[in-house]
C-alpha cells in the first residue's frame, strides 16, 4: 500500500468569519421572532394592531391629556359637564389623587398627628431593608425587632393614649395605613399559626388531627367575605354582654385565621415532600418532637415552599381590600368613598382613583413575587432538577 499524501491538510488556522448577514442583526431577529411562518406573521399583525390601537390611547389618557393639579372638579370636567376642559376631552384626573393623597395614605388620621404613621413607616423600612438583604448580618436580632419589637412600638405610636400621645381610635385609621398594618400583622400571625395547624394535621393524635382538618377545610371552603361577616356579626354575639370588640381587631382576626388555613396547606405540602429518612434520622439521633421539627424538618420544608408562602402573602395582601365591604376604609375603601365627594365627581374621577390604587397594590404584590423568585434561586440547594 502506498502512503497517503497528507499535503491537503492545511497548516494554519482559517480566519474566523463573521456570521452570515442572514442570522445576525435586527432583520434576522425579526425573521426569527416575528415572521417565522405564515401563521406567525398573522399573529404578529394582530398583536401589532392591538398594541397600536390600545397603547396610544392609554398614554394619551394617562399622561398627555391628564390633569395633574387643580382645586376641584372643574379641571377634570368638560364644558358641558360644568368644567373647563373642551368637549370630548378624556384624560386622567390625577388632580383628584393629588388632592386626596393625605387621605389615601392615612385616612382621617388627625393631620397634626400624621408624623406617627410616617415614623412607623420609616421604622418598617429601616428594619425591613436589612432583613431582605442577605449580606447584612445579625438576622436573628433583626427578625426579633421586626416581628416582636415593631408591632409593640407601632401599637403605642399609632393608637396612642400613653406616653403623652393623643389617643386615635382605629375608626379614624384608613388608606394605605390600614392596608399595610392589617396585612403585616396578618402575615406575622398567620405563618406560625399555619405551621402549627400543618403540624397538627400530620399529628399522630387523632383528636388534634381531626380538629385541625375540620378547621382548615371549613375555612378554605368558604369565601373571606363570609369569614369577615362572621367576625363582624358573630363575634359580638359570642362574647359576654357588654364586652365590645374593636372593628379593626375583628377584621384582623378574620383575615389572620383565614390566611392561617391556607398557610397550613402550603406548609403541609412542604412537610410531605421531606423524605421519611429525615424524620427517622432525627429520631435515631435522639431528638425530641419539637427539636426534630425545629432543627431538621422545618428548615427543609419551609425552604421548599417559599413560593407558596409568598403567594399566600400576596393573596392576603390583596384580600385585605375586602374589609371595604364591612365598611372599613383601607386603600381601596378610601378611594371608593371619595368618589361620592361632590367636589370631585366627574366621569374620570373613579377611573383615575382606581387606577392609582391598582398601581399601589400592583407595586407591592409584584415586588413580593420578584423577591420570592430571587430568594428561591438563592436558597436552591439542588432539590430541583
Amino acid at each position, binding site marked *: 500500500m502506498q502512503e497517503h499524501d497528507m499535503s491537503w491538510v492545511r497548516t494554519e488556522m482559517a480566519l474566523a468569519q463573521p456570521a452570515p448577514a442572514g442570522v445576525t442583526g435586527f432583520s434576522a431577529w425579526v425573521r426569527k421572532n416575528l415572521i417565522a411562518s405564515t401563521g406567525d406573521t398573522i399573529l*404578529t399583525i394582530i398583536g401589532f394592531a392591538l398594541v397600536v390601537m390600545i397603547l396610544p390611547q392609554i398614554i394619551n389618557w394617562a399622561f398627555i391629556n391628564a390633569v395633574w393639579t387643580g382645586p376641584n372638579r372643574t379641571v377634570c370636567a368638560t364644558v358641558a359637564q360644568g368644567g373647563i376642559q373642551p368637549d370630548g376631552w378624556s384624560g386622567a384626573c390625577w388632580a383628584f389623587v393629588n388632592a386626596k393623597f393625605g387621605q389615601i395614605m392615612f385616612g382621617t388620621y388627625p393631620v397634626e398627628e400624621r408624623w406617627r404613621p410616617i415614623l412607623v413607616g420609616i421604622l418598617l423600612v429601616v428594619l425591613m431593608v436589612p432583613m431582605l438583604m442577605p449580606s447584612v448580618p445579625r438576622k436573628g436580632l433583626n427578625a426579633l425587632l421586626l416581628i416582636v419589637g415593631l408591632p409593640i412600638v407601632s401599637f403605642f405610636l399609632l393608637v396612642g393614649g400613653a406616653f403623652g400621645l393623643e389617643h386615635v381610635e382605629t375608626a379614624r385609621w384608613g388608606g394605605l395605613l390600614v392596608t399595610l398594618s392589617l396585612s403585616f400583622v396578618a402575615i406575622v400571625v398567620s405563618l406560625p399559626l399555619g405551621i402549627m395547624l400543618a403540624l397538627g394535621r400530620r399529628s399522630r393524635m387523632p383528636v388534634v388531627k381531626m380538629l385541625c382538618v375540620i378547621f382548615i377545610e371549613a375555612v378554605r371552603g368558604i369565601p373571606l367575605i363570609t369569614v369577615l361577616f362572621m367576625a363582624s356579626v358573630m363575634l359580638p354575639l359570642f362574647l359576654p354582654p357588654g364586652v365590645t370588640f374593636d372593628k379593626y381587631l375583628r377584621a384582623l382576626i378574620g383575615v389572620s385565621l383565614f390566611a392561617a388555613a391556607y398557610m397550613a396547606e402550603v406548609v403541609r405540602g412542604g412537610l410531605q415532600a421531606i423524605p421519611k429518612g429525615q424524620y427517622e434520622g432525627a429520631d435515631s439521633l435522639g431528638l425530641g418532637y419539637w427539636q426534630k421539627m425545629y432543627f431538621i424538618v422545618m428548615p427543609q420544608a419551609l425552604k421548599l415552599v417559599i413560593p407558596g408562602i409568598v403567594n399566600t402573602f400576596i393573596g392576603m395582601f390583596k384580600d385585605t*381590600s375586602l374589609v371595604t365591604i364591612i365598611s372599613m376604609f383601607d386603600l381601596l375603601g378610601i378611594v371608593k368613598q371619595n368618589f361620592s365627594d361632590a367636589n370631585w365627581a366627574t366621569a374620570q374621577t373613579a377611573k383615575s382613583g382606581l*387606577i392609582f390604587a391598582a398601581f399601589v397594590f400592583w407595586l407591592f404584590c409584584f415586588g413580593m413575587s420578584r423577591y420570592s423568585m430571587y430568594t428561591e434561586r438563592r436558597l436552591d440547594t439542588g432539590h430541583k432538577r
Partner: protein
Amino acid sequence: MASQEVLREEPSRASLINDPKVRSIFYQCLVVALLVSGVWWIVHNTIVNLTNLHIASGFAFLRGRAGFDISDTAIAYTSDSTYGRAIIVGLINTLIVAFVGIITATIIGFIVGIGRLSKNWLIQKICTVYVEVFRNIPPLLVIFFWYSGVLAVLPAPRDSINLPFGSFLNQRGFYFPRAVWGDGSWLIPVGLLVGIAMAWFVARKAHQRQMATGQQFPVFWTSLALIIGLPLLAYVLSGFPVTFDFPKQSTFNLTGGFVVKPEFLSLYLALSFYTAAFIAEIVRAGIRGVAKGQSEASSALGLRAGQALRLVVVPQAMRIVIPPLASQYLNLTKNSSLAIAIGYPDLTATTGTVLNQTGQAVECVVIMMVIYLAISLLTSLFMNWFNAKMALVER
C-alpha cells in the same frame, strides 16, 4: 435467644410521665377539655345575648315574608316570597355567575397561557403583561373598575352605543335580542340532545374500530355536523318557530330584548379576567412540565405538529393542569361573593339582607357556610373523579 428473653423481661418504663402513649392521651384530653369549655362559654354567651335581643333561634324564620326586592331573579320572586326563596334566588345567581365566569376564564386563560409559550416575541410579551397586571391587583378593585370606572360612565339610554346584531350598550346594561320560543320549538333542544348522544356513540364506535383495525374516522367533524345539524334540521322541520324580540329605542329607555345588568356584567368580566391570569400560569406550567423528549419522539414517529400537540403533549399536560385548575374554579366561585360590593344579589348579598332584617345571625351564617362548603365539596369531588380518569394508568 438469651438476649431476646432479656428484652422481653424488661419492658423498660422509666416513669409514666415519659411514656409517649400516656402523654399523647393526656394532651388530647387537655385539648378536648379546653375545646368543650370554650364552646360551652361561647354557646352560653350567645344564648344570653340572643335572649337579651329577643331573638328566637331556629330556622322557622325562613318561611316568613321577605319584603325586599331582588333586581336579578332567575326564578319567580316578589317581595311577598319567603326568606327561604330569597336565599335560593341568591344561590342560583351565584351559580350562574360562577358557571359563565369559569367558562370564559378557562378560554381566556388557555389562550393567554399558550400565548406566553409562543415563539412569537410580540404575542409572548402581550400575554406576559396581561398576566403580571391582573395577578397582582385585588379582584375587588377590578370589579369596581368595571362598575364605576367603565360601565357607570357609559352614555345614558337615549344615546346608547349601537352594536352588531341589534344589541345596545348603555348605563343600564347590555341589551341584546331575546329569542322567543314559539310552538313546536321543543324539537330543537330534542335535536340537540339526540345530536350529542349520537356524537358520543360515533366517538365510541370510532375508537373501538381504531383499536381493532387501526383505521381512523373523522370523529370531530362528524360530531360537529351532528350537534349543529340536527337542531338546525329540527328548526327547519318545525317551521321556523323561533323569533327574536329586538330591543327598541324609545325616548328615555330601551324596551324589549334581554338585558344584562351592569352589576352582573362587571362581576362577570372582573372574575373572568382575574382568574384567567391564574389559569394562564397553570396552563403554561402544565405544558412546560411535559418533557421535551415527548414532542421530539412524536415528531420522530412522523406526527405533525398539531397531532403531536393533540395526541401527545396536551393529554400529559392535562394531568399537571387539572388539580390546580380545580382550585382556581373554586376560587372563582368563592370570589363571586364579592358581588355584595356592587349590589349584585348573590348568595352572600341576599343572605346578608335576610340577616339584617331578621337578626338571625347564627342561622344565616350557618346557611351561608353550609352552602359554600357543599359547592366546594361537590366541585372537588367532581374534579377528583375527572383527575382519576385522566391520571396516568401504570402497571
